């Protein structure tokens, strides 16, 4: 574990950890089994109901679990739709390396669209200032990609326990031709019957892991021995403390003279852009440590997301505008 932390850690350490700590129980517990079956049923509904779906891949643990579920849903066949990554240009390098390796190993198709292109085309304006982020800009790139690729369904890894406005999301969430979410216009969703019928220009966001909670994701990663990027585990990193959160230091954030950059043992509880994901001080170096840490943590998962802290309704507002 300690050996080769700097370079090899990125890929090798998680693999090692997982191999060493395989849980003793051979059968999945009832809860995970039910959640897995529900998610796979939903993913197959997408394949059955839509002509050009895609799976929105962010490199975070939820979308990694989603890819794993999609692989299982169609095994031994190939996933009948591509992954779509909206690259903000501000990703953690570990995330991108992980993405490319995963795509190769799983033999899935990946489409990447760049926020930088949207900026170059003048479609969006780069934010300025101390807490500038490209997080909100990716909505435009996503909507453009949906139009360009004529996607009728986008599978996403959002979970209802994440945030208040997510809690009201349907599993099949219809968006109008502007990509907008309208809470008042949501279709009733009954039993296990999903209505994916849409009009031209509309598309559906589908959330197969809606009913999973954060700890379910981790337990599932552990049980299924799913590889995840190394930055979910504790490592030394340069950080800047800002408004009581630890921001990872990178070229993408503006450092003021008052800011103090220091090295800390940290890990990431969620992974978004380097500009909007805060680190948590942690020494959790294995999945068991991480699960233990989450179980005893007094704080919610989105507490480390700067993008949600902009206002009390930050995520709802972004969703209304077509965000994931």
């Amino acid at each position, binding site marked *: 574990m300690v050996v080769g932390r700097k370079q090899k850690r990125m890929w090798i350490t998680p693999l090692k950890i997982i191999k060493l700590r395989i849980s003793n129980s051979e059968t999945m*517990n*009832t*809860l995970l089994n*039910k*959640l897995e*079956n529900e998610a*796979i*049923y939903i993913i*197959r*509904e997408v*394949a*059955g109901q839509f002509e050009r779906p895609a799976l929105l891949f962010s490199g975070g643990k939820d979308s990694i679990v989603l890819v794993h579920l999609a692989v*299982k*849903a*169609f*095994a*031994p*066949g190939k996933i*009948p739709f591509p992954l779509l990554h909206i690259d903000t240009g501000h990703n953690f390098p570990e995330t991108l390396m992980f993405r490319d390796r995963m795509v190769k190993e799983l033999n899935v198709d990946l489409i990447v669209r760049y926020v930088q292109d949207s900026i170059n085309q003048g479609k969006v304006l780069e934010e300025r200032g101390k807490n500038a982020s490209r997080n909100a800009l990716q909505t435009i790139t996503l909507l453009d990609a949906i139009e360009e690729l004529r996607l009728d369904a986008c599978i996403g890894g959002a979970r*209802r*326990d994440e945030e*208040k*406005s997510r*809690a*009201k999301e349907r599993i099949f969430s219809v968006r109008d031709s502007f990509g907008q979410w309208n*809470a*008042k216009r*949501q*279709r*009733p*969703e*009954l*039993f*296990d*019957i999903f*209505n994916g*019928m*849409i*009009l031209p220009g509309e598309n559906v966001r589908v959330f197969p892991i*809606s*009913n999973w*909670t954060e700890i379910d994701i981790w337990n599932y990663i552990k049980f299924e021995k799913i590889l995840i990027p190394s930055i979910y585990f504790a490592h030394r990193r340069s950080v800047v403390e800002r408004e009581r959160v630890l921001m990872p230091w990178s070229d993408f954030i503006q450092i003021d003279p008052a800011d103090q950059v220091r090295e800390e043992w940290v890990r990431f509880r969620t992974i978004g852009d380097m500009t909007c994901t805060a680190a948590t001080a942690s020494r959790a170096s294995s999945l068991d440590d991480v699960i233990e840490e989450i179980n005893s*943590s*007094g*704080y*919610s998962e989105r*507490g480390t997301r700067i993008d949600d802290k902009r206002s*009390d*309704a930050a995520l*709802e*507002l972004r969703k209304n505008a077509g965000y994931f």
Partner: protein
Amino acid sequence: MDLIRISTAGSVDDGKSTLIGRLLLETKALKKDQLEHIRSVSASRGMDFLDLSLATDGLISEREQGITIDVSHIYLNTSKRRYILADAPGHEEYTRNMVTASSSAQAMIILIDATKGITLQTRRHFYIAHLLRITHVVLCVNKMDLVNYDSGVFAEIQKDFMSIQEKMKGDFRTTYFIPVSALLGDNISTVSEYMPWYWGPSLIELMDQIEIIDNKSVETFFQSQYIQRVQNGHPSNSKRWILGKLKSGEMRVGDDVIVLPGETKSRVSGIHQFGTHKDILLHDENGSLQLEDEVDVSRGSIILNSQNPFHSYAEARTDVCWMHNKPLIPGALYIVQQGARKVRARVSAIHYTIDLNTLSRHDSQKMELNDIGQVTWTFAEPLYAQPFHMHKQSGAFIVIDPVNHNTIGVCLINS
């Protein structure tokens, strides 16, 4: 740990959001940052207590108006169970949201305001539990603190409620009554000392005790979602797999089956689950099937054990809950969706709509938003199912507007 789905219902101002906030607090689902947020907002509004309703009031428009507008999903753990609470708002569009929230619920919590007693909404909610065959109904009489924890008030509400249940012929729901104060936390996780006259469990104790019998009907019922061709080396060597879900019963390799529509007989020659071969598929599991013969199977096809226990409905009488402003009109064309299968259909007659005040039946020419009633459908192709009260997995379908594609109603097959 098992997974239980519960829907929660109550009229406006019964304190439902507070109850849910209280449940979150007492099961330690509220984290420090969330609690801190509730504390600071409560204080800024001049309250000297924690406004626990803030834990779930999500959307901007809801907070502006102090109401909830859509079904919200809340996750709780006790040491025994994971709960998914589907919380339906109790005002306009109540029936539509209530039915949506309750369709997959195994139990329902109905909140009653002790100072108001049984209301029209209570009847409405209970009627939905009755319609959807939800086995367990927990009636929480809230705000007991405002009636001085008086056992007489509680007994009166209980008596009133029993008289409603008696009116619903053939109702077999198990009902539980608990006096609570969501605001002060009485009888939520522990039994309250203010109500020594109440002998039962607290709400959370009761939730943990409720015995959930999965509706594991014996009928083997598999519905196909997606047909997959997997190439094995050479293109000519491709195999067809039927991907879908076993919605009830069990299915084994070697079982004789019948495929609908078409009533073609075949035999299960292989079962795959997520890339591995299996001998058996269990109730509620997804799998991939291979049949011995190249029979006609497409999305929505139904595969049953060879006795074919399903009815073929060219027409069906169903209970309806209408969910859209555009009324249901006899003769108009609709699309109905049963699981993965879609069929065109028309309503040939509306038999009655129900007045939930009196539970009496009325003649009607159309059904409006939030109406509940009974109609007869004529299907363009037969629907294969059993009545909802015998087999929930096959006996329900949704109604889709062929013009704008919205989901506009739900039907439960009666006969």
